């Protein structure tokens, strides 16, 4: 392989070089951006759960009590027993569990959506700690309340006031801007989980549709090993019932409905098609380029180049062209990624994770988690793109070079 010859060939035959590079670079660019986009959607699917420090949420649907008075469970979240929670905690792949008790409290003059939280747990709605706008967060062992700020404004509730829900009084210790913190597991009022459990256990309305003891819960937030989330989701159904609502990044992606979010296999198939088309274009372009050089190859052989010398030279040219195509493809992908990062996606939050009763104002509205798509090209994907380009160059160059090197110089060098 002669570097001078290689450099001159690529430089002075720019039309050929560019034609070979463009086709493959578009293919490589598509491959990289499709995968980067798929990863970005997958990450977006994690966002609603990530906000509450979880990977999976578990709820169990149940019946609605006859009368919506006093303390009731939303029909989308009834009892998950303490035994079931313990079983789930022992499953392989579960790294931690957060618990919650979600209640609707219908007092004569007001309806409350109340969420009992574990103050010290980093998994679950206690992440609200960072969204306290006034006052402080709930402290363990104290029957106190944290009120959602817009709800507090609506009903003129201030820090230091005492609110009474289902006959129990709670001093308001803080106001939280929950909309900043999360889109799921939000409520009007947050109380320590023990207080919510007491309220639920003491409610005849709750007990009438879903027997509940003071150690039970009705919301679970699970931190899990990423690769085990899908398997865990099906195992969880065997514990809490097949009708359970299991929220996972994948289930959010399904709600999003985007092609890129649908499945890794589809992305893989699209990438494969892109790369096959690119390889065919590159192969056809290079085959055309090499065929144009039949006379030149004849000269090389006439002056003493062996078949191996010819193949080596063409292989090196092809590898360099494809390497450049890989680089150019990455640049195209990076530009596309930059453009796509301005795109916003709105992930719909399922109605059964929306805590507001549908018959109250705003209760029927679809809730979305809106975020910018973070399209990034990881080094490993970039390296794969380049490596793939080089391999394509190697295979193309070797095949075409081997074929053209068999040319008989006497056939192509006869004078016109």
């Amino acid at each position, binding site marked *: 392989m*002669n570097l*001078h*010859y290689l450099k*001159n*060939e690529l*430089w*002075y*035959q720019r039309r050929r070089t560019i034609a070979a590079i463009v086709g493959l670079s578009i293919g490589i660019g598509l491959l990289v951006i499709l995968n980067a986009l798929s990863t970005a959607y997958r990450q977006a699917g994690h966002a609603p759960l990530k906000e509450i420090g979880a990977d999976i949420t578990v709820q169990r649907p149940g019946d609605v009590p006859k009368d919506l008075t006093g303390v009731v469970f939303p029909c989308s979240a009834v009892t998950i027993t303490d035994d079931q929670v313990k079983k789930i905690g022992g499953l392989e792949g579960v790294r931690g569990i957060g618990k919650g008790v979600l209640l609707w409290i219908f007092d004569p003059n007001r309806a409350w959506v109340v969420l009992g939280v574990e103050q010290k747990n980093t998994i679950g709605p206690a992440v609200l700690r960072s969204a306290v706008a006034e006052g402080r967060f709930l402290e363990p062992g104290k029957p106190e309340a944290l009120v959602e700020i817009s709800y507090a404004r609506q009903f003129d509730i201030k820090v230091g006031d005492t609110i009474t829900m289902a006959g129990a009084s709670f001093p308001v210790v803080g106001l939280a801007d929950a909309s900043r913190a999360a889109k799921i597991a939000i409520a009007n009022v947050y109380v320590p989980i023990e207080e919510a459990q007491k309220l639920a256990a003491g409610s005849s309305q709750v007990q009438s549709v879903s027997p509940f003891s003071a150690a039970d819960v009705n919301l679970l937030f699970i931190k899990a090993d990423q690769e085990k989330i899908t398997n865990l989701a099906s195992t969880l159904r065997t514990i809490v019932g097949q009708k359970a609502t299991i929220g996972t990044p994948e289930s959010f992606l399904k709600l999003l409905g985007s092609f890129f979010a649908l499945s890794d296999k589809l992305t893989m198939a699209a990438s494969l098609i892109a790369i096959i088309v690119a390889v065919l274009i590159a192969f056809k372009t290079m085959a055309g380029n090499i065929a144009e050089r039949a*006379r*030149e190859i*004849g*000269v*090389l*052989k*006439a*002056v*003493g*180049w*062996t*078949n*191996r*010398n010819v193949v080596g030279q063409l292989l090196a040219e092809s590898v360099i062209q494809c390497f450049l195509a890989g680089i150019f493809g990455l640049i195209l992908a990076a530009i596309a990624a930059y453009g796509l990062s301005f795109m916003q996606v709105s992930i719909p939050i399922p109605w059964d994770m929306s805590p507001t009763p549908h018959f109250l104002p705003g209760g029927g509205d679809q809730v979305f988690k809106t975020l910018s798509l973070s399209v990034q090209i990881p080094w490993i994907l970039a390296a794969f793109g380049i490596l793939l380009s080089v391999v394509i160059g190697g295979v193309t160059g070797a095949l075409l070079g081997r074929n053209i090197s068999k040319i*008989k*110089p*006497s056939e192509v*060098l*006869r*004078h*016109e």
Partner: protein
Amino acid sequence: MNSGTNNGALLSGKGLSKQYGDLKVVRNVSLSIKAGEFVCLVGKSGCGKTTLLSLLSGLERPSNGQVMLDGKDITKATEDELALFRRNNVGFIFQSFNLIPTLSAWENVALPLFPMAMSEQERKRRALELLEKMELGHRTEHLPSALSGGEKQRVAIARALINHPKVLFADEPTGNLDSATGDAIMEILNKLHKEEGVGVLMVTHEVELAKTADRLIRMQDGEVVS
């Protein structure tokens, strides 16, 4: 049928035939060239001159017969051995120059050296030396597209000489040149065989040019007729 087969010949072809399908292009030709001899192969277009040159130079394998160079039978050589034989023993000059368009004059001259283990400086030194001899010392960095027909042919001659060949094969070397430039090229070829002892086998259809040769071989319908 044959002409000038000598003992002690540098290059000899014996009973050479070449057939493409039913078409017999070269028919049972035997000839030889001594070291430093200038032999002209003349004949009408299509009589088999270029095919015979291809057979003798190892560019083509004969259907029948044997080619010996310096006592070695090249018809039995493998493809790679033939390539090395051409690199080390023979030089080619073509009617249409066949320079590589993307390489400068000196790089075209050094083309046969590219696959050889040799430093870039040494390649360039040898190429420049030959270009100086061809009075092209001022055109070494030019691409073929910037050279005149005569200059291109002189670059091609320099390329043919870069490996100190024993025989030069020239196929209509003046065919694409005006008469004055053609004369100059002929002068170079004559000088090469007289001063440097390089054997030359030149194919031409111009009998006038052939008169300068040591020996003239006429071909007709694939056979040597005189």
